[in-house]
């Protein structure tokens, strides 16, 4: 077990280094640099010569490889550097953005799971064919709506037309309501799809019929037998949905004017702000590998079959999402 965890941690570190390097190279290849993005704005009226001087003062004219190892070294010592765009310490920016993103993401995720479970259960075990049909089609409709569109429409209807929740200047809780709903849509949809599929798979399994032969009712079956089995592929999916969460946050935060990792990322891309982006990549990678590690370690807890061969087998649910 320990060797397994150690190996996984080693893998995680490798992925981290690779992601860092890949991001570094990718960002270095982009046209326009952060100095240009900040000082090249014509409203500042700087000439190219002046901009070049500033660039030199940032050390941005040194060879790529030197800059790479410099920044890698700094990262390893925990120094995330400074944003070229704003000059703020990247660590501070992240420290400021992360809590607000989490405040959005965590309830978003919880709501998404709740929605997904409700939809999936109603679609598979709901009363009446008609109801099941309707619920079965909710996830595909949900995945076909662009997130920003959902957000804008929600704002228009619930805030501006009906005046139910303010977008600007409400209490922190009020300000969360619509963004959380918006963010949950793109996550709930694929989750519900996987859940529906795995419930359908599980209930075909012989043991379900055996439990029925003992006199179990539908809800008994669903809650005490099917649900837990269907959870495994959903969990795998949840690990992968992390990316969806980040993407959703970028859009949601920008529609609802919330500061967070998403906004930070979008702005940093626009400004070619490499130090910020590298930090975002590192954070995302750490989160990704951690989530997946946790998911991997959770499998054996949920399914005793996986206890011995932990990590080698993994319920396949990859790529079912949209």
């Amino acid at each position, binding site marked *: 077990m320990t060797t397994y965890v150690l190996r996984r941690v080693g893998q995680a570190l490798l992925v981290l280094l690779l992601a860092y390097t890949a991001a570094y190279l990718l960002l270095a290849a982009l046209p326009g640099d952060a100095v240009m*993005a900040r000082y090249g704005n014509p409203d500042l009226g700087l000439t190219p010569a*002046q901009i070049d001087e*500033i660039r030199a003062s940032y050390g941005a004219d040194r060879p790529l490889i030197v800059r790479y190892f410099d920044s890698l070294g700094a990262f390893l010592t925990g120094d995330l550097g400074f*944003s070229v765009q704003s000059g*703020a310490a990247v660590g501070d920016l992240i420290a400021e953005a992360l809590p607000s993103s989490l405040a959005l993401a965590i309830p978003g995720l919880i709501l998404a799971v709740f929605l997904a479970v409700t939809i999936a259960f109603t679609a598979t075990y709901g009363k009446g064919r008609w109801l099941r049909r309707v619920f079965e089609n909710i996830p595909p409709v949900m995945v076909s709506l662009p997130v920003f569109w959902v957000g804008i429409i929600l704002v228009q209807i619930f805030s*501006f037309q009906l005046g139910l929740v303010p977008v600007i*200047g409400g209490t922190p809780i009020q300000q969360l309501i619509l963004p959380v709903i918006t963010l949950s849509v793109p996550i709930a949809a694929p989750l519900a799809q996987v859940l529906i599929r795995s419930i359908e798979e599980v209930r075909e399994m012989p043991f379900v019929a055996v439990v029925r032969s003992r006199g179990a009712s539908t809800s008994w079956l669903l809650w005490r037998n099917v649900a837990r089995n269907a959870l495994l592929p959903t969990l795998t999916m949840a690990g992968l949905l992390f990316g969806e969460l980040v993407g959703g946050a970028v859009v949601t935060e920008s529609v609802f004017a919330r500061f967070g990792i998403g906004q930070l990322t979008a702005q940093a891309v626009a400004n070619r702000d490499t130090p910020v982006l590298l930090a975002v990549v590192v954070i995302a990678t750490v989160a990704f590998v951690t989530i997946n590690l946790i998911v991997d370690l959770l499998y054996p807890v949920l399914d005793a079959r996986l206890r011995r061969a932990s990590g080698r087998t993994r319920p396949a649910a990859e790529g079912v999402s949209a």
Partner: protein
Amino acid sequence: GGGGGEGSGAAGDNTLTYLEPQTWNTLYPPSGGFYPNGGVINNITDRLVYQNPSTLEFEPWIATDWEQNDDATEYTFTLREGVTYSDGSPLDAENVVKNFDLFGLGDTDRALPVSEAINNYDHGEVVDENTVKFFFSAPAPGFLQATSTINSGLLSNDTLDRDSQGFGPGSATEIVGSGPFVVADEQVGTELTLEARDDYDWAPPSLEHQGAAAIDGVQFIVTAEDSVRVGSVTSGQADIARQIAAPDEPQFEAEGVELLAAPTNGVTNSLSLRIGHTPFDDIRVRQALIAGIDREEIVDQLFTDSYPLATGILASTALGYTDTSEYYEYDPDEAARLLDEAGWELGSDGIRVKDGEKLHVTFNEALPQPRSKEVVTLIQEQLGELGFEIELFAGDQAAQDEARLDADTIQVYHSMVGRSDYDVLKSQLSGENRNALLNLDVASGEYVDEELESLLDRIASVPTPEARQEASAAAQQHIAENAYALPLFEEPQVFGLRSGVQGFATESIGRPSFYQVTLGE
């Protein structure tokens, strides 16, 4: 939040909520040209001189009096007494010199650029406690105006010691000015809270309101989505929103909301042709392009009355304006004739060709300008009929900035400049400044049209307003005759306001001033 709306949450009742589409990126005053920066700087700093936005006349502010020598190489200011920064330090002669030494010369080591508004600055001197004198290496007739702009917002000594990063997001509360508001709180990227300074007592004497600001504070909220900004004001959740798109203006005809279109008094929203590059090295093609664009249709289709059709490269309210509208008549037949004459022949696919080259022209997208993409789209359609193949260079701001200086990438440059001084024309077109026409070939260091450059130089070097007026008119005439640029419309800054908001005004190029605002229901 808004005095009336249901959104008046955390902020006190007398605090104004202001929605800004973009986030500020530095509070270093010379970088105040970027609109979101300027919006903050204008409210936390004072200037030596006040430029009356409606008359564009100069009035006392921190300087009670000033004079300049005949060739505009020396300026002397007498300072008001008793002015203090919000950290308690005095705004004295020494401090003013320190301010302008930094703004006029910049400091590359700290990555702090020189102010665009200040030309030929040499040094400043403390004459006595209340008098300062500035020296210039060459005539600097625009300097007086420069001292009135947000680019010359006065800062405390400690603040002036900061480096580029120290002016950036995350440091806003440490930027100390003497203005009516103080930055009280900052949430990087989204919110900035200004608080009124109780002991503020040095507003420009010509203002009606004096003493501390009438409201308790201002909350800046960055709201990128147009529809959210508009909806927030119309539903009463916010008090003021900047940048109301033309199609949204009708929503402000309703009760309880109003519009304010503030003029920017500078170079109009216009297209600058890259005169050193094919096909625009041929005047006939330039003329054809100008004659082939129906400006009225564009303004009718896309804009409202807040956006007057331009009658020259400068706005009609700008200093030095002359009317050159006769050069911008829409005449597609003439355009076609000119193109034929220039040897661009219609190809089978409807696109003109000369020497095997297609008449392919790329426009930039002016991201900060209203509906630039749609403007270019309509032009694409109009010029398409004449046989132009128009492409829009899509890209974010950084990509646009990079491409802007390359005539091979961008042949028509869509832009505007807000600055209420004769210098504005030079700012836009001179090879030393924005070089909008790429008149200066950066690689070779040579000018395509030396005459234009010297005309522009004259504006910034002749000392008297009358002489500058004349120089500016000459340059405008030259630009119009040579078909260097096509002005489209006079670009305003359009604000949407809840009607309870009284006394909202902008400085001379449209940055908001909250000093005199009062909030009612």
